Structure formats: structure tokens, C-alpha cells
């Protein structure tokens, strides 16, 4: 079996995953107590009103029927109405996903980009001060609640130092760039609006740090321990014996080997961040999907819960897929051995 076949098979396998996920989530959303209809209609609603909306939404039908209806709709792009926003969940998510995606991707990028040098330095200086310093810093990053970090960052960088903007994706009066991808960083560059790009970037800075600290720490620790393992490998000694520069050995030879196992975690982290960015989104008033998802949970907005979870699920699956792809790129053994 070639690597490509393997990937195709992986892709095919993700279909039942998404399907299973949707069934499970659908069940869960129906099992959770609380009456969404009453909530949607407000406290003054009469029984008659409640019954009417219930029927309209098909909530009076048996569960399998409800699921079948829902699935039928989903296939046609109709993800059901959000009880909270009265919009089609699909369009609600489409409106919010880019913000979350931008945040998550940049966060991941930031986390990995910083984790690499930290991990390499810590790993190649095991048990020296560089190692202790980056380990302790990393652990503090892991151990601090995200929203807490977010608030502290705001107090320090916005209130005290006045360096960065407080919240949102853009400053007041800065118009969003023409929508192409709806990722402001990308769109502003496409449109050549560098001012907007800078503004969007400065707005991203604090949320990214708050969100990414834990991931950064985890990835850094993994790279560290893998670098330590790699250091004992003969090929590293061999490369030294040939007189290759240390930086080349560390960042090209060892890192590529060491990074592969962190890759799984990075992939999982992407899905995780996608679904768990909400606390940071809340603190930074980031108009994203995670916040919407939590709202949906709180208000038992069935369709929205299912929709968001499925998008997150697709995120997970895609990330895992990309990880596999990268695996093959980074480590030919995977590519060759899958056969």
C-alpha cells in the first residue's frame, strides 16, 4: 500500500468519525435537560406558543426521526435554526469561524515557532540553567488558567503600559479589509492595506499569547525530551565527527527527528484550541465561534451545539490528517513503511 493510498484510506475513515460524532453529539444535546423552546420564546410564552415552536422545530418527534431530519438538512447545507440567533446555524458558524480560525492558526504558529528554539535550547543544555529556566517558565505557562493569563496581560500591556489594544479584531474606525478569506491578516495583505494588517496583528497579539501559552509549553517540553533522546543517537555524533556546524545539526538533523512526535500533539492542539478558545475569546471580546459554542451550550441551543461540535470535530480530523501528511514529509520512514 502506498503512502498516498494510506492517506486516502485515512480520509475515508474520517467519514464514519464525523458521522459517529454527529450522532453522539445529537444525542447528548437532546439528553441535556432544560427546555430550549421556552428559553427561546421568553418567560411570557404560553403553552400554545411553546407547543407551536416545538412542532415547528420537529422537537415533538422521536429522536431517530429528529436526527434523520437534521442529517437530511445538513447534507443540503441547512444546519437548522439557532434558537438563540434565529439564524441558520451554518451561516452563524460561517460568520464566526474565520475569527476563531485566525486566532487558532496564529496561536499555533506562534506556539510552535517559539517552542522550537526553547525546546532545542533546553534539550541541548539538559540540566543546565537554560533548561531549568525554560522548563519552569513553560510549566508556569501550563499551570496558569488561560482566562487569568488573559486578564493579567490586559492589565499589564493595555492598562499599565498602554502598548496594545484591549479587545476586538480591529480598532474603532478601522474598516475590515474586503472579505476574501475573512481572515483579516490575509485579506488585508491581499488588498495591500498594510495599516489594517498591522492593526489586526496588534489585536491578535495578546489573545494569541494567552491562548497559546499552554500549547507552547507542552510542545516545548516534548521537543525538549525528544531532543534529549536524539542527542544520544549515533547520527548526531556522526554529524559532529564530519565537522558539521552545531546549529545545522541541532536545527536540521535533530529537530526534524525530534519534531515528528510533537507533531501529533500540535495536531491535537489545533482541534483543542478550536473548541477551547472561548475563555480567551470572551476576555478579548473576540467575535469567534468558540464563544458562540459556549453560548449554545448555556442556552441549550441544540442545532448550534451540534453544528459547532461538528466543525470542531472536522477540525480535529483535518488536523490529524494534515499531521499524517506532514509525518510523511518529515519522516520518510512513515512514507516508506506504510507499504
Amino acid at each position: 500500500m502506498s503512502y498516498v493510498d494510506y492517506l486516502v484510506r485515512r480520509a475515508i475513515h474520517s467519514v464514519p468519525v464525523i458521522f459517529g460524532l454527529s450522532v453522539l453529539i445529537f444525542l447528548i444535546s437532546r439528553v441535556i435537560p432544560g427546555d430550549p423552546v421556552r428559553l427561546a420564546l421568553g418567560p411570557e410564552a404560553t403553552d400554545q406558543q411553546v407547543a407551536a415552536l416545538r412542532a415547528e422545530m420537529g422537537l415533538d418527534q422521536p429522536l431517530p426521526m429528529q436526527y434523520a431530519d437534521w442529517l437530511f438538512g445538513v447534507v443540503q447545507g441547512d444546519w437548522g435554526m439557532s434558537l438563540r440567533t434565529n439564524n441558520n446555524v451554518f451561516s452563524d458558524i460561517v460568520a464566526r469561524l474565520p475569527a476563531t480560525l485566525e486566532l487558532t492558526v496564529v496561536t499555533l504558529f506562534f506556539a510552535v515557532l517559539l517552542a522550537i528554539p526553547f525546546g532545542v535550547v533546553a534539550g541541548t543544555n539538559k540540566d543546565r540553567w537554560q533548561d531549568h529556566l525554560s522548563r519552569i517558565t513553560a510549566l508556569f505557562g501550563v499551570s496558569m488558567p488561560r482566562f487569568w493569563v488573559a486578564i493579567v496581560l490586559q492589565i499589564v500591556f493595555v492598562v499599565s503600559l498602554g502598548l496594545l489594544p484591549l479587545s476586538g479584531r480591529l480598532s474603532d474606525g478601522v474598516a475590515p479589509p474586503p472579505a476574501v478569506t475573512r481572515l483579516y491578516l490575509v485579506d488585508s495583505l491581499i488588498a495591500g492595506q498594510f495599516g489594517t494588517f498591522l492593526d489586526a496583528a496588534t489585536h491578535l497579539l495578546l489573545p494569541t499569547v494567552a491562548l497559546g501559552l499552554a500549547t507552547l509549553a507542552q510542545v516545548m517540553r516534548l521537543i525538549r525530551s525528544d531532543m534529549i533522546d536524539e542527542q544520544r543517537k549515533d547520527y548526531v555524533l556522526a554529524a559532529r565527527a564530519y565537522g558539521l556546524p552545531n546549529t545545522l545539526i541541532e536545527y536540521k538533523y535533530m529537530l526534524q527527528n525530534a519534531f515528528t512526535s510533537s507533531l501529533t500533539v500540535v495536531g491535537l492542539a489545533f482541534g483543542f484550541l478550536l473548541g477551547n478558545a472561548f475563555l480567551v475569546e470572551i476576555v478579548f471580546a473576540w467575535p469567534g465561534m468558540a464563544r458562540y459554542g459556549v453560548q449554545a451550550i448555556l442556552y441549550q441551543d441544540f442545532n448550534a451545539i451540534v453544528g459547532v461540535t461538528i466543525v470542531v470535530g472536522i477540525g480535529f480530523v483535518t488536523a490529524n490528517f494534515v499531521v499524517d501528511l506532514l509525518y510523511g514529509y518529515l519522516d520518510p520512514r512513515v512514507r516508506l513503511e506504510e507499504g
Partner: protein
Amino acid sequence: MNDSAYTTESTAAAQRDRDLDDPMVTVENLKKHFPLFEGIFQKKAGEVRAVDGVSFSIAEGETFGLVGESGSGKTTTGRSMLRLTEPTSGRVEIDGKNVVDLSDGELKRFRRNMQIVHQDPSSSLNPRHRVKSIIEAPLKIHDYGDSEARLERVEELLDMVDLPREFMYRYPGQLSGGQKQRVGIARAVALNPKFVVLDEPTSALDVSVQARIINILEEIQEEFGITYLFITHDLSLLKNVADRIGVMYLGRLVEVGDVDSVFGSPQHPYSRALLSAISTISEEDELAKPDRITLDGEVPDPREKPSGCAFRSRCAHEFDACAVEEPELYERGPDQVARCFLHDDRFEEGAEWE
């Protein structure tokens, strides 16, 4: 289970006569083909014929040596015999039982009769288990006595392989290669198996340790009458330990015979090339071995075996017939056969050989 089943059988076994008419191990036309899969739905797309029709037998208490180039299928032969990989076809009879036919449960129970010692002592021992639990494992699996009896047996085995008893509490990582291999041997013989496959048991060790290990193995064999299949590519070693040897090339035995006959007059060009490459430390040996023969030419891909004789691409004696059909094993002495057309009376090229 009764302890007596395990108590060391008398050394009477040492008195056995190496009787090939009533062999301990018989391998008949053993084949192991590894399928190659392709495509999304894993369609079979060919196979590697790692072992392709191997037959030989070993008498009780005898050591049968298997040599050959790396990749020729020695390990696969040994593993298929013990059903560590399922043989594709063939018969393997050990102590009168056809191993290939055993059900899973029977096989598990039968394993106490057949064991293996691997080439690499480090990787064949679980790094997280202490020596004691490594050696104890087969005893536990096959319900050997209570914990006291097992402890006693472990101590006995450690004595047998000449390791201090307190090594019981060490981890493999704390042992040297030779010590680890002794642990491997102790584990393999813990249940007094009838047959042990030794897959290059000393190739990771240096000569002084190797000599010790070989001595231990021989002593154990003598005492308990164990039958060995000894896989190696060290010919000098084989000369010293084996009673009979088989030379493998690309999944087939190309020469089988009594060790002295084969070393004295190798009857297959490949055997001869092998013998010629032995490194020696004395002039005497230098003279005893054939002149250096360098093998040129491509080593064939085991996935696409060439027609006719597999060795012909590298053979200095190759002639037309070699490409047409595969030679059979020709009788070359009282206990020596070789798979080469040079010994076929049909072709006159045979003269070239002597």
C-alpha cells in the same frame, strides 16, 4: 502441574545416538511467502518468497547449522518452524507433532518444547523487567510450581548459565551483552525444551564472550539432549558447533551435509565463496580454506526471483542450463547434497568444478 514433569531428566540423554532415521525435528518443503499489499483495499500484489521449499531433519541432541547471506531466509526458516510467523505451507514435525497443525491453545502449551534465542540480546529482553521475572516468565506461563519452586528454578538456571544469583534483581540495561545473552539462554531452556532455535546467538558479542556462550550452550545440550538449530553467518564458528549444516541462498537450501564434508569440500559455488571469505588468524587455516572468491554481479530482488538457478547472476560457473530450470539437490557424498548443475551428469560443464 507436577514438578516432576520438569525436573531435569537424567543425563542418560547424553547417551543418545544421533539417529537420522528417527529425527527429533523434520522440516518438509517449508515455505513462507510474505504477501505484498497494494492499493486502498489492500489488494495482494505479489510476494516475497523468503523461504521457498526447505527440507531437512535434525536428530535428537544434534546441532544443525544454517548459514547463508543476509536476507537469504535463515531467520524466517527458524521463526516459521516455531510458528512465530505462520508458515505458508509445509510440515514441521517436532518430537513427533506436526507444529503447523496445532491449534492456538495447543500451540501455546507446546511452546514449552520449542524455544528460541535471538540474535540481539538487548532487544530480546524487556528492558523494564528484572532478570528474575524475565527468566520466570516461561515458568509462570506454563504453571511451573509455586513461587518458591520457581525461585529455586531461576537460581538453578542462573547457575547453569554461570551468572551470579544476585543478578536476579538487575535490569537488562545493567548487564553486559554477554550477560544478557546468558539470561536469554536461561529463559529459553527454563522448561527443558526439546528443540531450541539459536538465531545468531553470539553475533553481537565479541569472541571471548562468544566462546563462553558456546561452551554453555554445548554443556546444556550435552546434559539435557536438546536439539539445536544454529543460525549464523560465522563459518568458523559453525565449523566448531554444528554436526551438520545447511547453506541457504535466496530462500532455498543450496547445500546440506555433514559439517566436515561441507568444509572439506564444498559442493556449491556459493558455499565455496562463503568459505573463501573466512578471516583467519593462523597460516594453517589460511591454507585450509579455498582461495578468495569475490562475488560480483547483482544480488537478485527476492520479490522477483530469477528463473532457473537463483545464484547464477553471481556465479562464475554459470552456463546456459542455469537460466532454464532450477537444479535439484544432487547427492555428493554419504551425507552431502548440493543444488548445482555442475554435478549433473547431463552437462559436461561439471568437469570445471574439480
